[in-house]
């Protein structure tokens, strides 16, 4: 093959051009790869930083979860060490401190021979009440106690009660001043247990200190001001309660054909008369640790209204009482005595004397707590305060039962009782009651 010069130059030129082109192409390619590598390195560094950040965050979260688990485990260990029957009570306690919400609930069964009560109300399964209370931490010296209760009334309608609404200020240990609706601080039972069925030994309250709408004859709720406090005296501690309330009235007095039920005057004072009361007690220490003795006094005017809300009468309610409470875990003894010096201020005026009292003794053996209670009320039927109330009749009652602690927060009770109604109606009947009560 022959090449001419012109043709050879062209070939060389083309080859040279191709060569230069290849060199530049290779150089350009090398530059692009370097940039890509640097870019990839930069991205990798960023990814590593993100991974490190996420890893740190995960460790923080795991640490917090671990701390919470450790706290709960520590609480459970403490409970187990303490020999609790079962259940993480202290763990629950930690949680409840966070929520500040507590409460009670109970269900049961009752079989009563009370012929005065319709059979459908005295025999069968019962729903007790669902009670919740809050003790919010407000900081400083301010306090609050709010309690709501849901329950069914005798007609089967659900009722919501603002049981307590107390706003208080603690000046010191000697004086906390509360305002609002509270449990009237007379005797021990009324403030000690009230709707807290799980913490009370017996299935039901003594009849005469029952709630106003459940057969009670005392103003167990008050709306007003309440000063309370205590001071160490000797080895023990003296306590006091001093209160001023709207008092109560009797709605639909029985003498005018009504239901005759006390009403706590929650929103206003019907007769302009304020009720006053005082409760003084002493909590012993050392050898008598667990014993509290006290006395109380209460006075106020109570008006009676017919079913159409017409004011019919006025009575002076005047109570003087004493109580003893002892609890050392193995034994529980409660005794209360109320003496009434009531006066009819309208109609057949005059002063009558009545009294009511009870004694309850309980002994705890492992998870079982058998108990007995005797109660009696001799109520003057010429006293308007009593004869205008449906439950204001004299009675004797004996009860015996046993409480079984499933754990610290749930109990089962079985109670047998015998009741004698001795003046307005003459009747006696037996009753058996079971109850499953919890607190949380």
């Amino acid at each position, binding site marked *: 093959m022959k090449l001419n010069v012109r043709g050879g130059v062209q070939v060389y030129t083309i080859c040279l051009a191709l060569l230069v082109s290849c060199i530049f192409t290779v150089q350009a390619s090398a530059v692009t790869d370097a940039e890509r590598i640097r870019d990839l390195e930069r991205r990798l560094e960023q990814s590593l930083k993100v991974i490190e950040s996420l890893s740190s965050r995960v460790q923080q979260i795991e640490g917090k979860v671990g701390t919470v688990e450790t706290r709960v485990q520590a609480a459970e260990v*403490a409970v187990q060490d303490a020999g*609790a029957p079962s259940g993480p009570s202290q763990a629950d306690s*930690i949680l409840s401190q966070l929520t500040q919400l507590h409460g009670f609930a109970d269900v049961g069964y009752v079989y009563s021979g009370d012929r005065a009560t319709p059979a459908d109300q005295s025999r069968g399964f019962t729903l007790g009440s669902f009670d919740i*209370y809050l003790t919010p931490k407000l900081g400083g010296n301010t306090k609050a106690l709010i309690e709501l209760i849901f329950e069914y009334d005798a007609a089967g309608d659900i009722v919501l009660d603002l049981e307590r609404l107390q706003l208080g200020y603690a000046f010191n*240990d000697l004086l*906390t001043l509360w305002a609002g609706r509270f449990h009237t601080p007379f005797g021990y039972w009324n403030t000690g*247990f009230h709707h807290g069925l799980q*913490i009370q030994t017996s299935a039901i309250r003594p009849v005469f200190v029952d709630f106003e709408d459940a057969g009670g004859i005392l103003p167990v709720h008050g709306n007003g001001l309440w000063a309370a406090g205590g001071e160490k005296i000797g080895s023990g501690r003296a306590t006091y309660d001093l209160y001023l309330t709207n008092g109560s009235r009797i709605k639909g007095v029985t003498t005018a054909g009504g239901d005759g039920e006390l009403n706590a005057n929650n929103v206003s004072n019907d007769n302009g008369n304020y009720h006053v009361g005082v409760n003084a007690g002493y909590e012993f220490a050392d050898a008598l640790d667990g014993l509290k003795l006290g006395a109380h006094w209460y006075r106020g005017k109570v008006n009676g209204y017919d079913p159409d809300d017409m004011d019919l009468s006025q009575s002076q309610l005047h109570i003087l009482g004493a109580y003893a409470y002892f609890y050392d875990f193995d034994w529980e003894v409660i005794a209360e005595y109320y003496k009434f010096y009531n006066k009819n201020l309208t109609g057949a005026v005059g002063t009558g004397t009545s009294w009511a009292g009870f004694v309850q003794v309980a002994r705890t053996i492992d998870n079982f707590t058998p108990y007995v209670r005797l109660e009696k009320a001799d109520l003057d039927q010429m006293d308007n305060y009593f004869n205008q109330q449906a439950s204001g009749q004299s009675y004797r009652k004996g009860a015996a039962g046993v409480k079984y602690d499933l754990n610290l927060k749930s109990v089962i009770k079985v109670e047998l009782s015998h009741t004698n109604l001795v003046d307005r109606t003459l009747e006696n009947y037996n009753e058996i009651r079971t109850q499953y009560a919890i607190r949380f």
Partner: protein
Amino acid sequence: MIINRRNIIFILAIMISLAGTHVFADIYVISHVDVEVSAEDIKDIYLGRKEYAKDQQHLIPVQNAAARKEFMSQVLRMKSKRYRIYWAKKSFQDGTMTPQMKMNDKETIQYIMHTPGAIGYTKTKPEGVKIIKKY
């Protein structure tokens, strides 16, 4: 069984060894440095009966899960179950809150060091807080 000197020594040795298992651990009841309370107040504070110091400072008792059992038996002299039942009643009656629970000595000391009015208890001798009494 023949009662001789060797048997008596053997029985005494068993009794001594059993007694040794009931030796209590030290408990330090401690407070924040600014708290002015006496050892006689400790039980009342942990039962919610005393909420304020002499200078009206609000007291904040805390429990220590790691030393609770010893504190109950040596200081309050109460069964733990009774203490919990007591507080269930107390908080329902007057709204007083159950003392908070800390999980161990370290957490208890840290809380008390940094919380004016705080009171607690530990098994180990702490520093940076006031020791009210050693049991």
